[in-house]
Protein backbone atom coordinates (compact mmCIF):
# COMPACT_ATOMS: atom_id res chain seq x y z
CA UNK A 1 0.00 0.00 0.00
CA UNK A 2 2.76 2.38 0.99
CA UNK A 3 4.81 1.59 -2.15
CA UNK A 4 1.91 2.68 -4.36
CA UNK A 5 2.22 6.22 -2.97
CA UNK A 6 6.01 6.25 -3.05
CA UNK A 7 6.40 5.75 -6.81
CA UNK A 8 4.38 8.82 -7.95
CA UNK A 9 6.12 10.99 -5.31
CA UNK A 10 9.53 9.88 -6.51
CA UNK A 11 8.49 10.54 -10.08
CA UNK A 12 7.34 14.04 -9.14
CA UNK A 13 10.62 14.80 -7.38
CA UNK A 14 12.58 13.54 -10.38
CA UNK A 15 10.55 15.79 -12.69
CA UNK A 16 11.13 18.85 -10.49
CA UNK A 17 14.89 18.19 -10.39
CA UNK A 18 14.99 17.77 -14.14
CA UNK A 19 13.09 21.01 -14.69
CA UNK A 20 15.45 22.91 -12.37
CA UNK A 21 18.58 21.63 -14.12
CA UNK A 22 17.17 22.58 -17.53
CA UNK A 23 16.34 26.07 -16.25
CA UNK A 24 19.85 26.66 -14.88
CA UNK A 25 21.49 25.48 -18.12
CA UNK A 26 19.23 27.82 -20.09
CA UNK A 27 20.14 30.75 -17.80
CA UNK A 28 23.87 30.13 -18.10
CA UNK A 29 23.66 29.86 -21.88
CA UNK A 30 21.68 33.14 -21.98
CA UNK A 31 24.31 34.86 -19.80
CA UNK A 32 27.08 33.52 -22.01
CA UNK A 33 25.26 34.82 -25.08
CA UNK A 34 24.89 38.23 -23.52
CA UNK A 35 28.56 38.29 -22.59
CA UNK A 36 29.68 37.43 -26.09
CA UNK A 37 27.32 40.00 -27.62
CA UNK A 38 28.71 42.79 -25.41
CA UNK A 39 32.31 41.95 -26.20
CA UNK A 40 31.80 41.39 -29.93
CA UNK A 41 29.44 44.39 -30.26
CA UNK A 42 27.11 42.87 -32.85
CA UNK A 43 25.12 45.38 -34.89
CA UNK A 44 21.83 46.24 -33.26
CA UNK A 45 22.83 44.88 -29.87
CA UNK A 46 22.76 47.36 -26.97
CA UNK A 47 26.30 47.83 -25.69
CA UNK A 48 27.66 50.41 -23.25
CA UNK A 49 30.41 52.60 -24.62
CA UNK A 50 33.37 52.71 -22.28
CA UNK A 51 35.59 55.79 -22.43
CA UNK A 52 39.25 55.04 -21.94
CA UNK A 53 41.60 57.72 -20.71
CA UNK A 54 44.31 58.28 -18.13
CA UNK A 55 43.50 61.87 -17.18
CA UNK A 56 40.54 64.16 -16.77
CA UNK A 57 40.19 67.91 -16.34
CA UNK A 58 37.28 69.35 -14.36
CA UNK A 59 36.22 72.75 -15.63
CA UNK A 60 34.68 75.45 -13.46
CA UNK A 61 30.90 75.05 -13.07
CA UNK A 62 29.09 77.81 -14.93
CA UNK A 63 25.51 78.93 -14.42
CA UNK A 64 23.20 79.44 -17.39
CA UNK A 65 20.28 81.85 -16.86
CA UNK A 66 20.22 81.17 -13.15
CA UNK A 67 21.57 82.90 -10.05
CA UNK A 68 23.98 80.76 -8.10
CA UNK A 69 25.86 82.09 -5.04
CA UNK A 70 29.64 81.90 -5.36
CA UNK A 71 30.02 79.50 -2.42
CA UNK A 72 27.76 76.95 -4.10
CA UNK A 73 29.61 77.22 -7.41
CA UNK A 74 32.97 76.69 -5.76
CA UNK A 75 31.68 73.91 -3.52
CA UNK A 76 30.32 72.04 -6.57
CA UNK A 77 33.69 72.35 -8.31
CA UNK A 78 35.78 71.30 -5.30
CA UNK A 79 33.49 68.44 -4.28
CA UNK A 80 33.40 67.10 -7.85
CA UNK A 81 37.20 67.14 -7.98
CA UNK A 82 37.35 65.22 -4.72
CA UNK A 83 34.73 62.66 -5.74
CA UNK A 84 36.20 62.09 -9.22
CA UNK A 85 39.62 61.50 -7.63
CA UNK A 86 38.00 58.94 -5.33
CA UNK A 87 36.63 56.91 -8.25
CA UNK A 88 40.20 55.78 -8.96
CA UNK A 89 39.69 55.66 -12.74
CA UNK A 90 42.27 58.33 -13.51
CA UNK A 91 45.97 58.68 -13.01
CA UNK A 92 45.61 62.46 -12.85
CA UNK A 93 42.64 64.72 -12.16
CA UNK A 94 43.45 68.23 -13.33
CA UNK A 95 41.85 71.45 -12.22
CA UNK A 96 40.47 74.10 -14.56
CA UNK A 97 43.27 75.91 -16.38
CA UNK A 98 46.11 73.63 -15.28
CA UNK A 99 48.94 74.13 -17.80
CA UNK A 100 50.35 70.65 -17.15
CA UNK A 101 47.31 69.09 -18.85
CA UNK A 102 48.14 70.69 -22.22
CA UNK A 103 50.61 67.94 -23.15
CA UNK A 104 48.24 65.03 -22.47
CA UNK A 105 46.82 63.61 -25.72
CA UNK A 106 43.97 61.49 -24.30
CA UNK A 107 42.72 64.10 -21.85
CA UNK A 108 38.97 64.13 -21.22
CA UNK A 109 37.40 67.44 -20.21
CA UNK A 110 34.37 67.56 -17.92
CA UNK A 111 32.23 70.65 -18.37
CA UNK A 112 29.15 71.33 -16.26
CA UNK A 113 26.49 73.97 -16.79
CA UNK A 114 24.11 74.76 -13.95
CA UNK A 115 20.61 75.25 -15.36
CA UNK A 116 18.48 74.93 -12.23
CA UNK A 117 19.23 75.87 -8.66
CA UNK A 118 17.15 76.03 -5.50
CA UNK A 119 19.00 76.97 -2.34
CA UNK A 120 16.31 75.74 0.05
CA UNK A 121 16.36 76.33 3.78
CA UNK A 122 18.11 74.20 6.39
CA UNK A 123 15.81 75.54 9.10
CA UNK A 124 12.65 74.60 7.19
CA UNK A 125 14.04 71.16 6.40
CA UNK A 126 14.94 70.42 10.00
CA UNK A 127 11.72 71.76 11.47
CA UNK A 128 9.16 70.48 8.96
CA UNK A 129 11.08 67.60 7.26
CA UNK A 130 8.93 68.05 4.14
CA UNK A 131 9.75 71.54 2.86
CA UNK A 132 12.90 73.57 2.29
CA UNK A 133 14.64 71.07 0.04
CA UNK A 134 17.76 72.15 -1.86
CA UNK A 135 18.39 71.04 -5.40
CA UNK A 136 20.87 71.60 -8.21
CA UNK A 137 20.53 70.42 -11.80
CA UNK A 138 23.54 70.49 -14.09
CA UNK A 139 24.22 69.46 -17.64
CA UNK A 140 27.42 67.46 -17.72
CA UNK A 141 29.39 67.11 -20.94
CA UNK A 142 32.53 65.06 -21.43
CA UNK A 143 34.68 66.17 -24.34
CA UNK A 144 38.01 65.20 -25.81
CA UNK A 145 40.80 67.69 -26.52
CA UNK A 146 39.38 68.41 -29.99
CA UNK A 147 36.03 69.41 -28.50
CA UNK A 148 34.16 66.31 -29.66
CA UNK A 149 31.43 65.18 -27.28
CA UNK A 150 32.02 61.80 -25.66
CA UNK A 151 29.05 61.91 -23.32
CA UNK A 152 26.26 64.30 -22.34
CA UNK A 153 23.87 63.85 -19.45
CA UNK A 154 21.79 65.83 -16.96
CA UNK A 155 22.72 65.18 -13.35
CA UNK A 156 20.88 66.38 -10.25
CA UNK A 157 21.78 66.75 -6.61
CA UNK A 158 19.08 66.98 -3.96
CA UNK A 159 18.98 67.51 -0.23
CA UNK A 160 15.72 66.69 1.54
CA UNK A 161 16.47 66.10 5.20
CA UNK A 162 19.78 66.13 7.04
CA UNK A 163 22.58 68.60 6.49
CA UNK A 164 23.25 72.26 5.82
CA UNK A 165 22.59 73.84 2.43
CA UNK A 166 26.10 73.31 1.02
CA UNK A 167 25.64 69.56 1.50
CA UNK A 168 23.62 69.53 -1.74
CA UNK A 169 26.84 70.18 -3.67
CA UNK A 170 28.35 67.05 -2.16
CA UNK A 171 25.32 65.00 -3.21
CA UNK A 172 25.62 66.37 -6.73
CA UNK A 173 29.33 65.53 -6.85
CA UNK A 174 28.56 61.97 -5.74
CA UNK A 175 26.10 61.62 -8.63
CA UNK A 176 28.65 62.96 -11.11
CA UNK A 177 31.15 60.42 -9.78
CA UNK A 178 28.53 57.70 -10.33
CA UNK A 179 28.19 58.84 -13.94
CA UNK A 180 31.97 58.58 -14.30
CA UNK A 181 31.92 55.11 -12.76
CA UNK A 182 29.31 53.94 -15.26
CA UNK A 183 31.18 55.21 -18.30
CA UNK A 184 34.89 54.70 -17.59
Amino acid at each position, binding site marked *: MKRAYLIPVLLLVALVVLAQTQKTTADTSKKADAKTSSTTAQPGAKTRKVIKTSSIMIKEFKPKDVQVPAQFQ*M*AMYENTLEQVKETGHFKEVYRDGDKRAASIPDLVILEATIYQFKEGSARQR*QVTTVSGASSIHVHVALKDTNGAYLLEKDVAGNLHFLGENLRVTYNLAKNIADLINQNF
Partner: protein
Amino acid sequence: MYRPLRWLLLLLCACAAFAQNAPAPPQATHVLGIEVMKHGVKGTLQTKDGNLVFSPSNAVVAQIPVAGIEDVSIGADSKRTVGGPIGTLTMFGPYGSGRFISLFREKLDVLTISFRDENGALHGVIFSLPVGAAKGVKKDLLAAGAKSSTPLEEAKPADAKGAPDQKVTPAADKKEDK
Protein backbone atom coordinates in the same frame (compact mmCIF):
# COMPACT_ATOMS: atom_id res chain seq x y z
CA MET B 1 51.63 106.90 49.32
CA TYR B 2 49.02 106.58 46.59
CA ARG B 3 51.24 108.07 43.90
CA PRO B 4 52.86 104.76 42.78
CA LEU B 5 49.44 103.15 42.63
CA ARG B 6 48.15 106.00 40.49
CA TRP B 7 51.02 105.54 38.03
CA LEU B 8 50.40 101.81 37.89
CA LEU B 9 46.72 102.39 37.17
CA LEU B 10 47.58 104.82 34.37
CA LEU B 11 50.01 102.31 32.87
CA LEU B 12 47.38 99.59 32.95
CA CYS B 13 44.84 101.86 31.23
CA ALA B 14 47.39 102.72 28.52
CA CYS B 15 48.12 99.04 27.95
CA ALA B 16 44.43 98.23 27.69
CA ALA B 17 43.87 101.07 25.20
CA PHE B 18 46.81 99.87 23.08
CA ALA B 19 45.49 96.32 23.10
CA GLN B 20 42.11 97.55 21.87
CA ASN B 21 43.68 99.50 19.02
CA ALA B 22 45.35 96.41 17.54
CA PRO B 23 42.43 94.33 16.24
CA ALA B 24 42.74 90.60 16.60
CA PRO B 25 42.45 88.55 13.40
CA PRO B 26 38.96 87.06 13.03
CA GLN B 27 38.23 83.46 13.84
CA ALA B 28 37.23 81.43 10.78
CA THR B 29 36.19 77.87 10.06
CA HIS B 30 37.50 76.03 7.03
CA VAL B 31 34.46 74.75 5.12
CA LEU B 32 36.27 73.23 2.15
CA GLY B 33 38.99 73.82 -0.43
CA ILE B 34 42.29 73.43 1.43
CA GLU B 35 43.42 69.93 0.49
CA VAL B 36 45.83 69.44 3.38
CA MET B 37 43.26 70.42 5.97
CA LYS B 38 40.16 68.71 7.28
CA HIS B 39 36.76 70.33 6.90
CA GLY B 40 35.58 72.23 9.95
CA VAL B 41 39.03 73.21 11.24
CA LYS B 42 38.98 76.50 13.16
CA GLY B 43 41.68 79.12 13.06
CA THR B 44 42.51 82.77 12.46
CA LEU B 45 42.39 84.41 9.06
CA GLN B 46 44.58 87.37 8.19
CA THR B 47 46.46 89.00 5.35
CA LYS B 48 50.20 88.97 5.97
CA ASP B 49 53.20 89.58 3.65
CA GLY B 50 51.18 89.24 0.44
CA ASN B 51 49.45 86.05 1.56
CA LEU B 52 46.12 85.18 3.05
CA VAL B 53 47.13 83.09 6.05
CA PHE B 54 44.80 80.67 7.75
CA SER B 55 46.37 79.51 11.01
CA PRO B 56 44.62 76.81 12.99
CA SER B 57 45.72 76.45 16.60
CA ASN B 58 47.46 73.09 16.22
CA ALA B 59 47.72 72.27 12.55
CA VAL B 60 49.53 73.20 9.35
CA VAL B 61 49.25 76.85 8.35
CA ALA B 62 47.69 77.42 4.92
CA GLN B 63 48.83 80.32 2.75
CA ILE B 64 47.11 81.67 -0.35
CA PRO B 65 49.14 84.16 -2.41
CA VAL B 66 47.05 87.32 -2.78
CA ALA B 67 48.41 87.93 -6.29
CA GLY B 68 46.71 84.74 -7.51
CA ILE B 69 43.29 85.58 -6.08
CA GLU B 70 40.75 86.08 -8.87
CA ASP B 71 37.63 86.63 -6.85
CA VAL B 72 36.55 87.29 -3.29
CA SER B 73 32.88 87.22 -2.42
CA ILE B 74 30.82 87.27 0.72
CA GLY B 75 27.67 85.20 1.14
CA ALA B 76 25.34 84.34 3.97
CA ASP B 77 24.56 81.13 5.73
CA SER B 78 23.55 79.87 9.12
CA LYS B 79 24.24 76.92 11.35
CA ARG B 80 22.40 75.22 14.16
CA THR B 81 23.18 76.70 17.55
CA VAL B 82 23.28 73.17 18.95
CA GLY B 83 25.32 71.39 16.35
CA GLY B 84 27.51 68.33 15.97
CA PRO B 85 26.61 64.87 17.25
CA ILE B 86 24.59 66.35 20.13
CA GLY B 87 22.59 68.39 17.62
CA THR B 88 21.85 65.26 15.61
CA LEU B 89 20.79 63.37 18.73
CA THR B 90 18.41 66.15 19.73
CA MET B 91 16.47 65.52 16.52
CA PHE B 92 15.21 62.29 18.07
CA GLY B 93 14.03 64.07 21.20
CA PRO B 94 10.45 63.48 22.36
CA TYR B 95 7.44 65.70 21.60
CA GLY B 96 9.20 67.52 18.74
CA SER B 97 11.79 69.05 21.04
CA GLY B 98 14.49 68.40 18.44
CA ARG B 99 12.61 70.37 15.85
CA PHE B 100 12.10 73.18 18.35
CA ILE B 101 15.86 73.31 18.99
CA SER B 102 16.42 73.43 15.20
CA LEU B 103 14.67 76.79 15.16
CA PHE B 104 17.66 78.36 16.89
CA ARG B 105 20.29 79.10 14.31
CA GLU B 106 23.40 81.25 14.28
CA LYS B 107 24.02 83.59 11.33
CA LEU B 108 27.33 83.35 9.51
CA ASP B 109 29.30 85.12 6.80
CA VAL B 110 30.66 82.84 4.10
CA LEU B 111 33.87 84.01 2.45
CA THR B 112 34.53 82.40 -0.92
CA ILE B 113 37.94 82.84 -2.51
CA SER B 114 38.89 81.59 -5.94
CA PHE B 115 42.54 81.68 -6.95
CA ARG B 116 44.99 80.17 -9.40
CA ASP B 117 48.20 78.46 -8.38
CA GLU B 118 51.59 78.63 -10.17
CA ASN B 119 50.33 76.14 -12.80
CA GLY B 120 47.25 78.21 -13.54
CA ALA B 121 44.94 75.68 -11.87
CA LEU B 122 41.78 77.05 -10.33
CA HIS B 123 41.17 76.50 -6.60
CA GLY B 124 38.20 77.48 -4.50
CA VAL B 125 38.32 77.93 -0.75
CA ILE B 126 35.36 78.58 1.51
CA PHE B 127 35.54 79.90 5.07
CA SER B 128 32.72 80.67 7.45
CA LEU B 129 33.15 83.60 9.81
CA PRO B 130 31.06 85.43 12.41
CA VAL B 131 28.65 87.98 10.93
CA GLY B 132 30.46 91.13 9.80
CA ALA B 133 33.98 89.66 10.02
CA ALA B 134 34.22 88.70 6.34
CA LYS B 135 34.01 92.32 5.24
CA GLY B 136 37.22 93.17 7.09
CA VAL B 137 39.09 90.24 5.54
CA LYS B 138 37.87 91.20 2.08
CA LYS B 139 38.92 94.82 2.66
CA ASP B 140 42.43 93.69 3.63
CA LEU B 141 42.63 91.38 0.60
CA LEU B 142 41.56 94.11 -1.83
CA ALA B 143 44.08 96.49 -0.27
CA ALA B 144 46.80 93.87 -0.76
CA GLY B 145 45.97 93.57 -4.48
CA ALA B 146 43.36 90.80 -4.73
CA LYS B 147 40.73 91.03 -7.45
CA SER B 148 37.00 90.86 -6.94
CA SER B 149 34.04 90.86 -9.31
CA THR B 150 31.89 92.57 -6.68
CA PRO B 151 32.62 95.83 -4.85
CA LEU B 152 33.44 95.86 -1.16
CA GLU B 153 30.01 97.28 -0.33
CA GLU B 154 28.27 94.24 -1.74
CA ALA B 155 24.91 93.18 -0.42
CA LYS B 156 25.12 92.51 3.27
CA PRO B 157 24.52 88.87 4.01
CA ALA B 158 21.38 89.56 5.92
CA ASP B 159 18.99 86.73 6.55
CA ALA B 160 19.93 83.46 8.12
CA LYS B 161 18.14 81.52 5.40
CA GLY B 162 20.95 82.48 3.09
CA ALA B 163 19.82 85.03 0.58
CA PRO B 164 21.65 84.59 -2.72
CA ASP B 165 24.65 86.81 -3.10
CA GLN B 166 24.28 89.78 -5.42
CA LYS B 167 27.14 88.37 -7.43
CA VAL B 168 25.24 86.57 -10.11
CA THR B 169 27.68 85.00 -12.47
CA PRO B 170 31.25 85.40 -11.35
CA ALA B 171 32.37 83.37 -14.30
CA ALA B 172 30.60 85.60 -16.80
CA ASP B 173 33.16 88.37 -16.75
CA LYS B 174 36.09 86.01 -16.85
CA LYS B 175 37.61 85.00 -20.12
CA GLU B 176 35.85 82.31 -22.08
CA ASP B 177 37.14 78.76 -22.24
CA LYS B 178 39.21 77.83 -25.19
